[in-house]
């Protein structure tokens, strides 16, 4: 079906080669690690649920008091909440709130942490000392309490809270740990023989940082992106569960908040209202962590077979 390599035009050949290397091979590698594969499937399911779920399953928020706390049935796969609304629909719609915030926050955290770590580690000297002190300050501040305080202040200050503000907020408390370990890695990479070779060849600092050092950090950055997203999910749903930031109904954290307010115990008829969002969050986290474990195989050419 495909022409042999020598006969294909070069551009097409390169594209096929790149696709094979970047998409096909990683998938094959991941599938050998059962946990990572499970993680990937979970993630894909959640993303699909967030993107197309709301189109397939309408969200009906009109209260039906006669239907409160119904157990799961064909009509309501996860039962109903305190106002008789379908829980399953709410879970499906919640994804489109939580997932973008989580990944955006993870991305911003990794961006800030990596940039600070690389600058501090590569440039060294006095700048390094100043930045390290700065990092240490952020590390000693307890994350979640700081988050609570800033969240409440934001809510009262009247600043519009949108997805970017929340992502930024979540990143502020979590970038410091990553910055410190990236800095440590950069410090040790600086001493490698291939960096000395690049310096001897006279290559620019920009080339050395982006083209020699970064590829060696990519595996670590990717894993940290996953784990930062995990942390962001917890922080975000935690803030929502405590009712500290505004939300739309159907948001998983909001559901937990409501459940706490309206449901007395975890047993009995109302238990689905608390279990559904909690389990949804937990399964997502497990999926991301499993996937993070398998990411190294993708980024490290030494672990590939050829």
């Amino acid at each position, binding site marked *: 079906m495909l022409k042999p390599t020598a006969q294909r035009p070069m551009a097409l050949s390169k594209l096929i080669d790149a696709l094979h290397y970047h998409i096909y091979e990683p998938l094959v590698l991941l599938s050998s690690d059962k946990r990572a594969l499970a993680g990937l499937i979970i993630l894909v399911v959640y993303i699909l649920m967030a993107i197309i779920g709301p189109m397939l399953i309408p969200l009906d928020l009109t209260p039906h008091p006669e239907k409160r706390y119904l157990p799961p049935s064909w009509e309501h796969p996860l039962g109903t909440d305190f106002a008789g609304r379908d829980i399953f629909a709410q879970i499906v719609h919640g994804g489109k709130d939580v997932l973008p915030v989580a990944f955006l926050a993870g991305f911003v955290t990794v961006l800030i942490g990596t940039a600070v770590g690389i600058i501090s580690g590569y440039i060294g000297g006095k700048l390094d000392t100043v930045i390290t002190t700065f990092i240490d300050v952020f590390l000693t501040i307890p994350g979640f309490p700081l988050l609570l305080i800033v969240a409440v202040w934001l809510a009262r200050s009247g600043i519009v809270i949108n997805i970017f503000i929340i992502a930024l907020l979540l990143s502020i408390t979590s970038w410091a740990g990553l910055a410190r370990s990236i800095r440590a890695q950069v410090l040790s990479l600086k001493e490698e*023989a*291939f960096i000395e070779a690049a310096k001897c060849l006279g*290559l620019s600092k920009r080339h050395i940082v982006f083209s020699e050092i970064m590829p060696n950090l990519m595996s670590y950055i990717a894993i940290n992106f996953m784990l930062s997203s995990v942390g962001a999910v917890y922080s975000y749903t935690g803030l929502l569960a405590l009712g500290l930031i505004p939300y739309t109904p159907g948001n998983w954290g909001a559901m937990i908040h409501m459940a706490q307010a309206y449901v007395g115990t975890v047993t009995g008829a109302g238990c689905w209202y608390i279990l559904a969002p909690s389990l949804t969050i937990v399964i997502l986290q497990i999926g991301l962590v499993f996937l993070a474990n398998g990411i190294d195989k993708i980024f490290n050419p030494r672990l590939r077979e050829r």
Partner: protein
Amino acid sequence: MVSLIATDRVTKIFEVGGMFTAKKYIKAVDNVSLELGENEILCLVGESGCGKSTLGRLMLDLIRPSSGRVLYEGKNICSLKGKEYKEFRRNAQLIPQDPYSTLNPMKKVVSSLMPPLLHYKIARNRREARKMAAELLTMVGLSPPEDILERFPCRLSGGQLQRIAIARAISVQPKFIVADEAVSMIDASLRVGILNLMLDIQRKFKTTFLFITHDLAIARYFARDRKIAVMYLGNIVEIGRTEEVIQNPLHPYTKVLVEAVPIPDPKLARERPLPKLKSLEIPSLINPPPGCKFHTRCPLAEKICKEKDPELRLVKGRLVACHLY
């Protein structure tokens, strides 16, 4: 005539300790002055730890000297800036010892060979750089190059990696190359191939080579008809034409070094006498002996050797640092 690269009384001192122990100092290179012209080969031999690698890196500006100057075409490299420094940087290259760690493990071979070609505009664009990278690989004896270009270093053998390191060093067309124990980590059977490759390059491009090695046999092969310098604990003790120094060593340390070269014949090796040394202990670099550093082991040491450090003197057409002459 201005030499290509020269060192002027260069010294390098490293600090050790200081955290939990008292700070100590290691004088790796002690007051060394060397001069290399164009199209020259100098072999630098000595035991491990005598400072030869440090001297090589000082001449490439990978380490800055504690005192003294390194001169490129007569100018102090510390004072070179901008275009002049870029010019020096391009013309002073290194072939390091360990082929396995000198290439970025996360980059394909082609990605390691292209950047210098693009940086110095030897290639006008990426396509040309790629073509030149393939030509370089053929030049160093790796063919077909297409296969090797797309591989990661972890998939290649030591000999191949060292040839790639050589290709990378010559890609910028340097006038001066320091080969720091370039064949020490290569299998014995492949060494001659790599040595011949470097000799071919030297002859073709008339590059000046500083060839650092601890193996006298290799030094003899690479620098035949050229010069050899013997180093001991940071000092150069003898420089001269290779055959003369090896056949007729003047400095007592050189004599011992030549006598210590292993003989392939086991019967002869068993019968040969041990070199005459006063002590088998190598002095530490933290506390070097006063005067001539070799006097603790030298069988011909006299009173003056303990007191005064000998300078390199012209003896029988060579430079020797010994009070005997």
